[in-house]
């Protein structure tokens, strides 16, 4: 089986889905310019050679082309729209929130909106307007499905599932996980590559996965934080603490069955997400756990997140902003020590 990075796996998914279904097309900025970059992170590199008519390079008009993706989806196509940086989704909030997410509902179920939005997130040395983690903002928007793959296997399988889904799916991709070598070797990047099976597969939306089994504490973590949580689990193991690491893979719908089963086993819950703490994805997960799993919890639920500040530029400040392996390990240790 070939080993692919997330960028390569996403490209393979797009290539296979466009070959399988002629309704699928890509729309965005700099995605299919011959001699260009294949989007900001090489995901669509070279696809224009095989799918010239279905790689729509747009002006810099996020609200415009995301609204167009909606129109095309309503007329029977299956667009995959990407923004170069997730932060630019904010230029398109009317289309994403007011139009895309609500169109089916307002129609009384007469319409469906089969489209995918891809958004790179995560603080990566680019300062406050190219590094936001926007996942939490969209948790509050019913009508959207949200997915956040942390490995290349999941990236390919979730993108395929998203393209085949009849609902709008917003996929968050972490900039430090696209690839750890060559053009994608950024400071802090992590190898998230996977062996990719030759045969067609999807990763079902709404299904999480246990990345590491454990019995003392459940650590739920997404995207880059999932990789840091795995590293923290190694540290914890050396101290005799057995951490179970769960990668939810989807935020909406969320795999409560998996997290609930784990918490009932460990009785302790730590949730790790990148981005400001207040109103974070972690906040929502611990709130629901506190509401529904209180009888099983032996310690207060814990959030490990960024502080409530914009993402800073200077590398030491940025590293302070992103939860580190040590912070995750310390939080889990403290949680386990509560008697």
């Amino acid at each position, binding site marked *: 089986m070939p080993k692919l990075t997330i960028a390569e796996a996403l490209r393979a998914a797009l290539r296979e889905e466009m070959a399988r279904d002629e309704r699928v097309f890509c729309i965005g900025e700099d995605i299919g310019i011959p001699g260009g970059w294949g989007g900001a992170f090489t995901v669509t590199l070279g696809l224009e050679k095989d799918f010239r*008519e279905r790689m729509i390079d747009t002006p810099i008009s996020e*609200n415009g082309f995301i609204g167009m993706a909606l*129109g*095309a989806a309503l007329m029977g*196509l299956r667009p995959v729209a990407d923004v170069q940086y997730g932060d630019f989704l904010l230029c398109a909030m009317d289309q994403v929130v007011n139009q895309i997410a609500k169109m089916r509902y307002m129609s*009384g179920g007469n319409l469906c909106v089969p489209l995918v939005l891809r958004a790179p997130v995560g603080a990566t040395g680019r300062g406050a307007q190219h590094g936001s983690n926007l996942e939490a903002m969209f948790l509050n928007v019913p009508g959207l499905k949200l997915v956040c793959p942390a490995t290349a296997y999941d990236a390919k399988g979730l993108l395929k599932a998203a393209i085949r889904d009849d609902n709008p799916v917003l996929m968050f991709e972490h900039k430090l996980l696209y690839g750890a070598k060559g053009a994608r070797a950024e400071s802090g990047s992590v190898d998230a590559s996977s062996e990719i099976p030759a045969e067609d597969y999807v990763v079902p939306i709404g299904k999480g996965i246990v990345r590491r089994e454990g019995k003392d504490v459940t650590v739920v973590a997404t995207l880059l934080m999932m990789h840091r949580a795995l590293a923290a689990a190694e540290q914890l193991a050396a101290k005799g603490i057995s951490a179970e690491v769960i990668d939810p893979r989807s935020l909406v719908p969320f795999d409560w069955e998996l997290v609930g089963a784990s918490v009932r086993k460990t009785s302790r819950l730590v949730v790790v997400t990148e981005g400001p703490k207040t109103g974070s994805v972690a906040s929502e997960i611990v709130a629901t756990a506190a509401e529904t799993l209180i009888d099983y919890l032996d310690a207060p639920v814990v959030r490990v997140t960024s502080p409530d500040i914009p993402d800073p530029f200077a590398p030491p400040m940025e590293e302070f902003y992103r939860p580190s392996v040590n912070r995750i390990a310390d939080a889990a240790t403290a949680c386990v020590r509560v008697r």
Partner: protein
Amino acid sequence: MPTPIRMPDFGTNVTELKISRWLVEVGTPVHRGTILAEIETDKVTMELECIADGVLLERCIKDGEMVEAGRIIAHVGAPEALAGAVAAPAVAPTTARLRPGSVEFLLDLYRRMLLIRHFEERVKYLFLEGVMPGTIHQCQGQEAIAVGVCAALGPADVITSTHRPHGHAIAKGLTVKSLMHELFGKPTGCCRGKGGSMHVGDPAKGMIPAIAIVGGGVPVATGMALAFRMKKEPRVAVCFMGDGAVNEGAFHEGVNMGAIWSLPVVYVIENNRYSASTPIAKTVRLKNLAERAAGYGIPGVTVDGNDVLAVYETARAAVGQARCGGGPTLIEAVTYRITGHSRRDPCNYQPEEERKKALAAEPIGRFAAHLMADGVVDQAELDRIRAEVDAEIERAVESAIAAPDPRPEDALEDVYA
């Protein structure tokens, strides 16, 4: 299905009919009104007008051949039907529901405008009486734009609408009953009570739920046109918007993309001269909003939006151009809202003199006078139409009030497919 073009019957005095000259080659895009051929009778030479949009698929008669009235002499239809043709421009299925200029066509325009006006007036009083929930934005005075534009569209063409959508819905063929039920929040409404006044629509009729964010429909209509282009479907999207929309970023982004890709979309600005209560002179420096088109390199046309036939002709040309690959047109239809922006708005910001002039120029009375002056209808016919329209609206009101309310928990459905 291809539309047959028949030799017209010029009456009993004409005995010899000859196609003296075809003017359009097979495979050429045509629309209603395109002159297809010259016909020579024993008395005069006349022009044969096309009655459908599409491409000329076939000429059944040669130049100079004699033909009897009623015989099929050509076919017009979608380009896919063209033998051996792959690269023909996208065109539409027939929209020739009624022949333009025929009495039936003119009366249908009148009837639709009146249906919108009386629907809006009835709804207004239902609100003022406290019978109807929610809020409303009404289009009294603007009926000619919705009706004129939609008369230039076929059933497969689609529209986007605004927070002021009732007229567009009726013009595009939604029933008064399905709208009235929706306004009352009934599960029998066109959006099962989940849309309400500002989001009425019916995809089966070519109208997606109305978009109540000003300018929000511009990118969406443009994207629908992109889909038609990519799927090689001979359909056109029309985006209705108010004058306020031209100051939204979405307008700029959407129109620009429609323009650069020559998409089959027509942008229709209903310039009623007020953004809510703010007069247009305070928000735009241009004299005509159609001048904005120059910024995108597309044609811009300003038309009297209270003249239903002028609107129809303008829309027909723009739709025909869009369908044949000629790209978008920005139509500014100048009108006046002779009712409030929303419920209970007394319009104190509209100068008295201006209102008086606008009322005198409102489109329905004007069109009725035109029809009577031309001898197309008499007062009795207009009265008959009015009675029919009012009866249809009353039936809709009665059935909407009688219809059961939705179950509260039905609110949980239709979020996801």
